[in-house]
């Protein structure tokens, strides 16, 4: 028996399959996009909402809508909030400054091939792979004023022991050093990637024109590297802004007994986990979020401006 030729009926399944085929990228990425959106949108929305309430002690208790009171409280608080903002800026700017300079030096040293380059690169990158909390604990021991290795080493060359993390005046700077120790390699890595992508010709041309090494670096390399440098500042800057692990691991709650390393992050953490002030903590976090957005925006503008 032979089947009479008929136009095949397109089943629902077949239709879906065709549709899915045409929109493959959305179908595949869809679930994770929905998931990510929910994971971002719900907590963010909830935090914004909580920031307008007087929620404290437990979010399962009744609370009232109080408008911008929490924001007013935070923005007029010169005891904890503004000093935290100051420390956040100081820490971020300090860390970024040294990381960029050292990162650039390391990148330039690693730029041209030399014997044993692989080993040197590995050693330089080592701090990057350590967990920040472990790094914090390690430096806390090393900087211990009485039995720590750092003071021991100083004593070999006749330098008096320093208080490092123990003194409120030096603790934040000491932590900038720790951050620089850990994150300079990442900046170096980004800058090195930028350097390797630079055209040889411009350097050659500069050399022919009689520019010395410094001039070639300052007037040729740096301008060409500007987008990469801004990318490094963006990536590392946002990370440094929200540093928490090493601050908490070395100085504990509240940024230490005198709040000497209390950045915005540590402050917001303390507000919600120690004081159970969920409303105020949310408002502080939103303010922090806005600061980060503003920084990103400025840097992006910079980059776009340069590119165009």
């Amino acid at each position, binding site marked *: 028996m032979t089947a009479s030729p008929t136009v095949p009926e397109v089943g629902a399944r077949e239709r879906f399959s065709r549709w899915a085929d045409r929109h493959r990228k959305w179908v595949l990425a869809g679930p994770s996009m929905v998931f990510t959106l929910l994971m971002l949108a719900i907590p963010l929305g909830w935090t914004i909402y909580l920031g307008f309430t007087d929620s404290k*002690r437990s979010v399962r208790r*009744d609370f009232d809508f109080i408008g911008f009171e929490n924001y007013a409280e935070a923005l007029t608080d010169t005891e904890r909030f503004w000093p935290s903002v100051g420390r956040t800026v100081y820490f971020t700017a300090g860390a970024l400054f040294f990381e960029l300079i050292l990162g650039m030096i390391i990148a330039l040293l690693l730029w041209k091939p030399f014997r044993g380059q692989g080993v040197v690169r590995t050693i330089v990158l080592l701090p990057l792979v350590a967990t920040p909390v472990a790094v914090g604990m390690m430096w806390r021991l090393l900087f211990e004023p009485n039995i720590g290795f750092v003071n021991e080493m100083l004593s070999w060359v006749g330098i008096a022991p320093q208080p490092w*993390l123990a003194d409120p005046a030096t603790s934040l700077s000491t932590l900038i050093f720790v951050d620089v120790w850990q994150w300079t390699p990442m900046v170096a890595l980004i800058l090195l990637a930028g350097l390797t992508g630079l055209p040889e010709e411009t350097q050659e041309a500069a050399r022919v024109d009689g520019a010395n090494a410094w001039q070639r670096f300052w007037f040729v390399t740096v301008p060409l590297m500007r987008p990469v440098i801004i990318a490094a500042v963006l990536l590392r800057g946002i990370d440094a802004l929200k540093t928490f692990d090493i601050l908490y691991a070395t100085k504990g709650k509240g940024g*230490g*007994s*005198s709040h000497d390393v209390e950045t915005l992050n540590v402050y917001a953490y303390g507000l919600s986990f120690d004081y159970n002030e969920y409303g105020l903590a949310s408002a502080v976090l939103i303010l922090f979020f806005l600061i980060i957005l503003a920084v990103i925006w400025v840097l992006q503008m910079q980059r776009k401006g340069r590119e165009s």
Partner: protein
Amino acid sequence: MKYGSKPARVIAAASIAMVAGALASCSSAPEVDPEAGIEGQTIRVTLANHVWTESIKELIPEFEKETGAKVEITQLAEDQLSDQYNVKLNAGTDEIDVMMYRPLQEGKLFADNGYLADLTDLAEGDKEWDWSDFQKGPAELTTYDDEIVGVPIITERTVLYYRKDLLEKAGLEVPTTLEELDAAAAKIHEQNPDIAGYIGRTGKSAAVTQFSAFLFSFGGKWITDDGESAIDSDEARDAYKFYGDLIRTHTSATINPEMSWPEAFAVFQQGKAAFIADADSLYKNMTDPSQSTVADNVGFAAFPAGDAGAKPYNIASWGLAINDATEKKDAAWQFIEWATSKQTMLEMSKLGVSGSRTSVWDDADATADYPDELIEAIKVNGENGVGQDRPLVIQVAQAREIVGDPIVTAIAGGDVDAAVDTAAKAFDEFLAEDAE
């Protein structure tokens, strides 16, 4: 993150609680049957790093064998434990059945939030287990609004740890007053410039509990009977100054301003200090040769007397409670009942845990392995002891930071009076808000 994995479930639970956050949580607790068969059930117990935890872990296989239930332990450091509770209980999790908590630190907050199940009927209904056998002070600390919400498991008092060899070398008797303690610390440091006469907690919050023994012994207190700040009384000012001077003036070392007990103990354990006053429940850290280089030379004494006599704290530092949101209250209660039974507490006592049952303290067997001097000190401290070591408020962490501020100033050698004035004002504002 895998769907259905633990973190995913926590996030899901948190999100749901967030969405429903404004709605009052209404939990209709199922009747708890203390005799229910719990074979095959898994009881999830969250515990802190503590001698008690190490000891109960040795005994838990017996419980599992007896009941056929399985005990799953999550063990965390104090701060992490606290953070876990904050996140999970806020989200209304049912993933914690039994929780080890600090009645003085979080008891009021958790009970007020409705996180802790009411155990009154269960505790009072079991004559054999015998709630009346628990020491009065500790039992009061785990009771909130006339409801029993927890069972005290560890009690502690401030005890004075000292170095026998150093005292002998200096020809000194064990100090019985705070003045003598100060003089002894000075003399020993003079003789041994590398050794601190006295070491203690220095961290703002951490120091509060140990400082309380000094405060009470000077005749001061945290809060007046009218619920106002009492930290600016003359007695309290003297206590702040004394504690700061005691730590600062008898040492040549740089003082680490963030010390809690592990750091302060480490100094003593390394032979770098002559005296430390801290919780007696931690004594094994001093006498265990694997942790302490001066294990053989550690002496114990009752807390020295100040102007108002010797008034160390005598408190329940930890208790066990049931998460009100759990669906396994039967099993949870059976675990608590077993862990706090006379027999288990006796066993635990033999392992070095100072429990909360009167009958166990009266049993000579229970404390046979304790150093004699320590038992003597515990007895004396127990008689003089005050039932609190920190302000009894809801938001304890915040209160500790406020009243701890002058301690830090005193240790740093700053203007204590000014610090006390500022702290007293802040404390008054805090107390008014906390009472709302």
